[in-house]
Every structure is written in C-alpha cells, then in structure tokens.
C-alpha cells in the first residue's frame, strides 16, 4: 500500500520545483508560484501522515517498507575486503520508524514554512518569488530523499542536494555580497564534511560489499567480531566528519551563523529544523555501526557537548536576533550529538523532532519581528514589542520556554532524556550539558526580553508614544524585506501568524510522545524508534531472550568483549547491563535540570528586565571574557588566519613553484628543444642538404653531356640508331 505512494512524497515537491523553476520564474505570478509550492508540500505532508499511520498499524517488527523506484547503478564488479563484490545501487526508498518520523517533521514543518513564506517573501518580485519557492521545494525534495533513501548513495544524493539548496537559499539575495559570501562559505565548509562522508561510504562498501543500510546493520556485529572494531571505528569517524559539516559541529560549525544571511524562513527550515539535523539523522541511521565503535561514540559525545557549550556561550552576548538563534541551533545540535554519543539514539531523534518544532517557531517568530521592524535584526534597537506583536510575543514565549526545558513544554522531555542518559554515560559530559542548559535558558530569555520587554529602543515612527523615547536612528535599509515606507512595528499578517500558532502548539505537545517512565509515561517514541537502531530481529531477541544474545556474542571470541561493551552502551532500552537509576534519582535529576533552567531565566530577568543596564555593567567588569564571547572566540579569525591564509599561502607557494620550477622546467625543456632543433637544423641545412645537393649538382653537371642527346626529335634517335647499325655492320665487315 505505502509502496505505491511512498515515492510520491519526495517527488511531489520535486514536481513543484520543476514547475516553478521552468515555467514559474518567467510566467507565474506570486499566487500561482505560491499555490504550486504549497500544494505540493501539503500533498507530501498528507502522504507522509498516511505512510506514518500505515506504519503504526503494523506490528513492531514489520515496520519496514522498501520501495525500489528505479534501477540506478547496474551491477559492477568491484573489489571489497572479501574478494570481488558486486556494486549495484537502486533508487530505493525505505520507510521505517526513524524515516517516518523524519518525513513527518520535514513535510509538516516544511509545509508550515512554505505558508509562512507566502507572506514573508511577498515583497519580492514575481520571478524572484518563484525562484525562492523553486529552491524551497527542491530542498524539500532532497531532504525527503535524504531521509527516505535506503542506501548510502541515495542518501548522499539528498545530502548533496540539500547542501546545494542551502547554498542557493543562503545566497538568495545574491546581489548582497555578504549573502553570496555566506553561501559560498556554507558550501565550501560542507564540502569538507562531504569528503569525509564519501570516504566513509567507500570504506563501507569495501568492508561490507553493499551500501544498503539494513544490510550493513545486519552485518555489522559479525564484521566487528571478525575484523575487529578498527575498520568500523574508521568508518564511523569518517561518517561523523560528514555529520559535523552538515550539522555544524566543531570544527565545521562556522558556516551556520553566517548562513543567517538567507531569508528567515530558510533559516527556520534549513538551518534549524531539517537540513542541519541531517548529520544527526545520519548518525542515528547508522546507530548499529556507531554502537560497534565505542571510542568514536566517545568522540561524538565530546564534540557534541563541547559544541553545545561553546555555541551557547557565544549566544550569551550576541545582539543579532538571528545569530542568537543560529548559535542556539548549533548548541542544540551539539545536544543531539551528545545523545548519540552516549548511545541515546532515540533521545537524539526525539530532541531532533521537538527542536524542529520550537526552533522553527523561534526562527519564524524572529522573522515576524524582523518583518514588523522593517528589516531590523539588532535586538538593541528593539524592545517593548509585546505591545505591537502580541501573537508573535506569545508564540515565541512558548518557544523560549520549550527550548529552555521548562515542563511541560516539549523541550523539557527531550532535553531531560538526553541529560539523563548523559548522566548515566559520563559525569563530566553531564556537568557540561547542564551548564549549557542553564546558558540556553539565559540567552533565550535574554532574546525575548531584549525584543519584547523593557523600553522601546527602535527608530522613531509616526504615532510613537512615550515608549518610543529614543530619537530616530539612521533608518535601516530594508534590504530584501522592503515593504514600502515603514510605519512602526506591527503584527505580521495571518499567513505568518497561523504557522506560528500551529508550531507553538506543536512545541507544547510534541514532547508528550516521549514522557519518561519516571513520570508515569511510556516513552512511546523510544519504543517506536527502537527497530531503526538495532540489527534486524535484535529487538525481539533483546526482549525475549537477553541471555541468549549474550551467549551468541560471547561465542564470537576475541571481539566479544568489545561487542558486549558496545551493546551495553548502545541498547537504547537499557534492557540489560545498562546502568540504571532509581525512579527517585531520575526525578531528582529532572528537578535539578528544571531548577537550572529556571535559574537561567531568573538571571536573565534580573539582568535585562528588572535592572536594565546591569548586563552592560557586568560586561564592563569582565571585558576580556565579554569580548571573547562577542567575537565568538575569534574562531572565524583563527580559521581565516590558519585555514584560509594557509590555503592562500599554499596556493601562492604552489603558484611560485609553478611559475619558477614547473614553468622553468617547461620553458627550459622548450628552450633546449629549440636549441637542439636549431643545431640539427644547421646540420641538416649544411651537411645533409649539402650532401644531397652536392650529389644532385654533381649528377646534373655530369649528365649535361648526355642530356644534350635527348633532343626529343625522333629523327635524331633514328640517326643514332643507324649509326649503331653502321658501327655493327662495319665491325662485321672488318672482323669477319
């Protein structure tokens, strides 16, 4: 059933993109372009829901539907670790719990953002409007391909495709140099990660002889036992490099804050809700592989938590509303990697989903603010917007509470699950994660406070009352958002607020699918997702006969210890051998994290609401720390000084080398050739030709006498002949 319409889920947005891209840019009005894009996304969402429902109806161990859309790479003989293998790849899609969750998120939030964009991008010209929706649809196509792909190569197509669309959309206002630069930066930084992904993919094929996820997962434990964990660790590390690029983790996170140059809905869709989570998705998709490489898991967890901490600390002091959200996204992605690193793949996917809701909400809210402020993004020129944008204020407040982890909002459940698993995994990581959580609550409240609370600090506008105390700042250019003269902050149109409200509702309720057992819930999402993180049949084996599995793994011999350890860290249910806390302990941790979050909010309230100016004084007191954070640890400068300069230096050195040595060699050999040619030319001219000409001349001179005989006159010849006759006859007569 589902296999009949599953391919349509990605193909519908593709059709929309094709229509808008081919015909829309030239012929469509705004309404037509928006209708095409939104209707295809709506249809994709409906089909996604249908597919999800159908999957739910099946028994837990049969929740996997594979559809081969078309043949792609015909079987090729290719060498693998175990002799010559067959390299054959189909355009195959696979629906399992993880990808079902992902397509719901992508098509659902994608649809809302499409709707939001209809109003947000209304100031664009017709062609640019269609172009925008073409890119957006194309992105959804690639993203859905990415999550539905049943093998590495199809996923890689989506992976590269979303990278392309990200580049196109960041550089959407390509007339602006900063936008096109940011697009290029995103593309190039992603390229580094993609290189790792590709190497990992090659190694996967070399090791397993197939690229199919399910086949790889089923083989992984056996391979780990047979070949040791080294190869798997290398694969996982390479794949993780790819994930760091796409999901903006240390050290490849630098592109994401710059990506805020794109339109805000794009930031919401691509750089918060979907594309940047592709790395997390990829790691979750290969959960079995990662579980076999505990060292790499540790690396993943460390990178994740460090990224989370670092990005959150930078977010503390940023003044651009979208940049705060960008660093917040990086930080939350770090959380997700932290979760995968400690083996909580389900928690990572859960947080991915809730994060998609509240971060998309926050971005769209910030877009609404920017829209209301006529393109202004600096929070220092906002304030007191609660009065003018009540809906935006309310929804963003929900988003803020969700991301801060205040119960009962969705972020609480997912974040708390991660913190809990981190606590079980490694205490230091847990401490860092908790600090990050506090920072998150603080800077998110700071964002809301600076934007909506306090005194109005924006430019003056007609009809401003006492709240608009400041004299007019230089009126900001409207960039791409220009919508005529700006008449002061105002609420956004319905097309924008409705998605906000829907997302806010999602941000509230999305967490309820994963209420932990400690709170009386069933943590249903974890059980739902479990089949995606296990080799086939392992769920049953683990549930019914854990000792049995232990016995088989023990029989693997040398590698069994590693396998067991990995299994222990990986098993998301913690069915056996996993450390477990008592319900009281779990509740205590929960309470602690709530307290941390509330503390962060309280500090923010104290610094930004109760005592305006206190924050500035604090910054003056610790100038070094403040400047470090404000300048983002000078990482960009560091990269510029090392990587960019290094590359340029290398290029320069290569150029000099090329110019001096290579060109010199080439020119030298050319000169040598010319010289030897000249010499041999002389030899040819004077010696060889001399010989030839001399021979000819000699012969000519010698033949001059004979030549005269050749008069061409027949009679002369006859005469000569007769002379010969005469001579012969004379000889006869004389000699007779």
């Amino acid at each position, binding site marked *: 059933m589902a296999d009949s319409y599953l391919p349509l889920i990605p193909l519908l947005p593709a059709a929309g993109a094709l229509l808008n891209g081919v015909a829309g840019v030239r012929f469509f009005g705004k309404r037509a372009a928006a209708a095409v894009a939104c209707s295809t996304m709506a249809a994709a969402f409906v089909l996604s829901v249908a597919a999800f429902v159908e999957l739910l109806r099946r028994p837990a161990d049969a929740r996997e539907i594979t559809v081969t859309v078309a043949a792609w790479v015909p079987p090729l003989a290719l060498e693998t670790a175990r002799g010559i293998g067959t390299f054959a790849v189909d355009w195959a899609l696979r629906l399992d719990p993880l990808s079902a969750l992902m397509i719901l998120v992508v098509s659902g939030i994608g649809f809302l953002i499409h709707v939001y964009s209809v109003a947000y991008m209304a100031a664009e010209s017709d062609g640019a409007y269609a172009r925008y929706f073409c890119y957006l649809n194309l992105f959804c196509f690639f993203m859905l391909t990415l999550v539905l792909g049943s093998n590495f190569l199809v996923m890689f197509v989506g992976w590269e495709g979303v990278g392309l669309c990200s580049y196109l959309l960041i550089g959407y206002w390509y007339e602006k140099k900063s936008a096109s630069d940011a697009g290029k930066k995103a593309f190039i930084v992603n390229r580094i990660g993609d290189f790792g992904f590709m190497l990992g993919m090659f190694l996967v094929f070399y090791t397993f002889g197939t690229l199919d996820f399910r086949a790889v997962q089923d083989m992984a434990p056996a391979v780990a036992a047979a070949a040791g964990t080294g190869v798997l660790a290398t694969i996982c590390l390479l794949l993780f490099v790819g994930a760091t690029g796409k999901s903006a983790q240390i050290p490849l996170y630098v592109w994401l804050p710059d990506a805020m140059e794109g339109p805000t809905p794009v930031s919401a869709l691509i750089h918060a809700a979907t594309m940047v989570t592709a790395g997390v998705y990829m790691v979750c998709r290969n959960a079995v592989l990662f579980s076999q490489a505990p060292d790499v898991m540790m690396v993943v967890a460390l990178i994740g938590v460090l990224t989370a901490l670092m990005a959150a600390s930078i977010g503390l002091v940023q003044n651009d509303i979208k940049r705060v959200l960008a660093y917040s996204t990086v930080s939350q992605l770090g959380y997700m990697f932290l979760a995968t690193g400690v083996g909580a793949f389900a928690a990572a996917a859960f947080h991915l989903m809730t994060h998609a809701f509240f971060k998309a909400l926050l971005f769209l809210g910030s877009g609404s603010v920017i829209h209301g402020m006529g393109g202004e993004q600096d929070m220092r020129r906002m304030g007191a917007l609660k009065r003018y944008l009540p809906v935006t204020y309310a929804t963003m407040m929900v988003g803020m509470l969700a991301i801060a982890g205040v119960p009962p909002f969705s972020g609480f459940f997912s974040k708390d699950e991660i913190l809990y698993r981190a606590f079980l995994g490694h205490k230091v990581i847990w401490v860092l994660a908790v600090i990050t959580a506090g920072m998150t609550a603080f800077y998110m409240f700071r964002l809301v406070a600076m934007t909506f609370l306090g005194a109005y600090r924006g430019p003056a506008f007609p009809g401003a009352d006492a709240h608009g105390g400041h004299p007019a700042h230089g009126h900001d250019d409207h960039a791409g958002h220009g919508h005529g003269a700006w008449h002061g902050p105002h609420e956004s149109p319905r097309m924008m607020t409705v998605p906000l409200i829907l997302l806010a509702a999602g941000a509230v309720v999305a967490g309820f699918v994963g209420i932990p057992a400690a709170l009386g819930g069933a943590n249903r999402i974890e059980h739902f997702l479990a089949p995606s993180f296990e080799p086939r049949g392992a769920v049953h084996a683990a549930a019914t006969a854990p000792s049995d599995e232990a016995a088989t793994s023990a029989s693997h011999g040398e590698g069994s210890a590693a396998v067991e350890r990995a299994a222990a860290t990986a098993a998301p249910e913690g069915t056996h051998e996993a450390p477990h806390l008592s319900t009281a302990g779990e509740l205590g941790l929960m309470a602690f994290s709530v307290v941390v979050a509330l503390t962060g909010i309280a500090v923010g309230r104290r610094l930004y609401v109760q005592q305006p100016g206190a924050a500035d004084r604090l910054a003056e007191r610790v100038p070094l720390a403040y400047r470090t954070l404000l300048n983002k640890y000078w990482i960009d400068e560091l990269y510029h000084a090392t990587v960019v300069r290094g590359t340029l230096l290398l290029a320069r050195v290569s150029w000099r080398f090329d110019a001096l040595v290579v060109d010199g060699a080439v020119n030298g050999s050319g000169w040598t050739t010319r010289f030897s040619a000249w010499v041999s030319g002389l030899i040819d001219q004077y010696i060889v030709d001399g010989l030839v000409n001399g021979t000819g001349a000699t012969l000519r001179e010698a033949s001059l006498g004979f030549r005269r005989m050749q008069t061409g006159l027949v009679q002369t010849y006859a*005469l000569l002949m*007769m002379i010969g006759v*005469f001579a012969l*006859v*004379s000889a*006869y007569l004389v000699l007779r």
Partner: protein
Amino acid sequence: MTIAFYTLAAFILALGVLVVSTKNTVHAVLFLVANFLCVAMLYVLLQAEFLAVIQVLVYAGGIVVLYLFVVMLVNLKRGPETHVDPRRRDRMGLLIGGAVLAEFVAILLYGFAPRATGAAPAAAAPGVGNVEQVGWSLYVDYLVPFEVASILLLVAMIGAIVLAKKEP
C-alpha cells in the same frame, strides 16, 4: 627477264628517290603508288602472283588512298619543310644512309655473290599454283599467326577510329 628486272629496278629506285625528295606531298603519294605498282610487277617476275595482286589491292589500292585522304585532311598552310631546326643533321642522315647502303652492297658482293651462281634456282612445283600454295601454307601451317594478324588489324582499325575521331 633480265631486261625486265633492270627496267623495273630502275623504275623502283627512281620512284623511291622521287617519293623521298618531292616537296609536294600529293606528288609524293602518287610516286609511291607508281613505286608500289612496279614492286608488284617485280613480284610477278619472282613468280609470286598472289602477292603481286595483294600488293596492288592493299598497298596501291588501300593504304595509298589512306595516305591521300590524310594529305587532304592535313591542309597545311605552310609547308613543314619551311621551318628549319638548327639541330637537324640532314647531311648526316644522307651520309649514314649511303654508308649503310654501301655496306649492304659490300656484304652482298663479298659474302653472297660467290655462291649466287652456284645455287641453281629450283623449278617451281608443277601443277601447283602459287595461290594454292600460299593458301595451304597460310591456312594450314600459319593459321594461328594469320588469326593474330586479323586481330591486329581489327585493333588497328579501332585504334585509328578512336584517334581520328574528333573530340566531342
């Protein structure tokens, strides 16, 4: 016989000299006809009647008419002899021709004459005509050369047509 031979020989040589020396080509052709007729008579003298008839028919009747036609067709505006090539060696030609003649005669006189008297001419086979003999020999002993000669003539005829045909 003797008188006939000498008379004919004188005519033949005189006419030959005239053919070679006359400026007018038409006259030369006419002298040539006369010469051929004289040779035909000489053949009769030598008891080769069939050959004599052929000589008259083919040479005097066919070939010479051909010559006449060509002479008519090649309507020269200026005589070929008016142009004198400096490289010509006319005297040399005369000299060599004379020398060769002298040598032939010398050979004949010194090598052939002594036995000439001794070799009595055998009488012709009685009852067998010259034409019959020639026919026997030609169609029995030399049949293949005869046919080859006929092919040669055919080829020559075709070649002459091709050569003489005006360019389209």
